[in-house]
């Protein structure tokens, strides 16, 4: 519990909500990251430029938060094979399930969408089980 950071997490979360609201209010789009990327890989007319701009903003965001004293954590100790396998599952699962923590967890939940509520419960439960199984092997 020594890592408990309620205030920065709340503030960061509020930024996510603000971003999703702005994108939807101004251009009618959904700030679901798996969807933004997925749409670029199977492009439709008028659907690529805003996605590219959105992802550019995301990649550059590390520069915006630097003056505020926030930086990316050191993750160099992670196992690259495990991370790569996880990437395959995350990419495949989010496309199949039509959303991830942002699309279902924020926008869908905020819209009280039944599909998103079920999906959020399913991926949370699955992730908790996965971490529990890993802890049995002493990997957490």
């Amino acid at each position: 519990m020594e890592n408990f950071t309620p205030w920065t997490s709340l503030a960061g979360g509020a930024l996510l909500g603000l971003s999703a609201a702005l994108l939807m209010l101004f251009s009618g789009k959904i700030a679901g990251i798996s969807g933004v990327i997925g749409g670029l890989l199977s492009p439709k007319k008028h659907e690529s430029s805003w996605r590219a701009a959105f992802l550019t903003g995301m990649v550059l965001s590390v520069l915006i938060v630097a003056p505020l004293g926030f930086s990316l954590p050191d993750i160099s100790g992670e196992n690259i094979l495990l991370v790569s396998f996880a990437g395959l599952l995350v990419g495949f699962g989010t496309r199949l399930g039509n959303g991830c923590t942002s699309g279902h967890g924020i926008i869908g939940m905020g819209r009280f969408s039944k599909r998103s509520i079920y999906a959020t419960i399913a991926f949370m439960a699955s992730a908790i089980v996965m971490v529990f199984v890993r802890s049995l092997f002493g990997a957490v």
Partner: protein
Amino acid sequence: MSKSKKIRILIGFISGALFGAGMIISGMVDPTKVIGFLNVTGDWDPSLMFVMGGALAVFTPIYHLVIKKRKTAISGDAFTWTTNTTIDGTLIWGAIIFGAGWGLAGFCPGPAIASIGGGTNIILAFVLSMLVGIVHANQYLAGRFPLPFVGYRKQCGS
């Protein structure tokens, strides 16, 4: 360039920057924190509950009080949310597979993109694998790529 296209690109960039900043500030980019949040039977770190809480506290009222009352977005574009309300196996299995990957490494798509600037090959490996996974899923959904045990997707209904 039309006005609506300018709005789409400018707002896309601004909201992307805000989104990435939110991911970094909230701690979602830290896999140790994500695993600590998911580790409910161990040394549970509830911080990331506040991420969803903060996001929903801002998005939900704006959506229900402002966005929902409009016919189109400010740019004149139609809202792109889905009208699909069916809870099917594709949705649930997709979410379960995603959750397994999330619990395995502690990364989900948003934090991964926001972490590209961090300079580790770990995140690049994750993002590339994720792109491969997305392509496979698109192929499977189009009925062109068989899955182990499941085979080709049947082309009926959704």
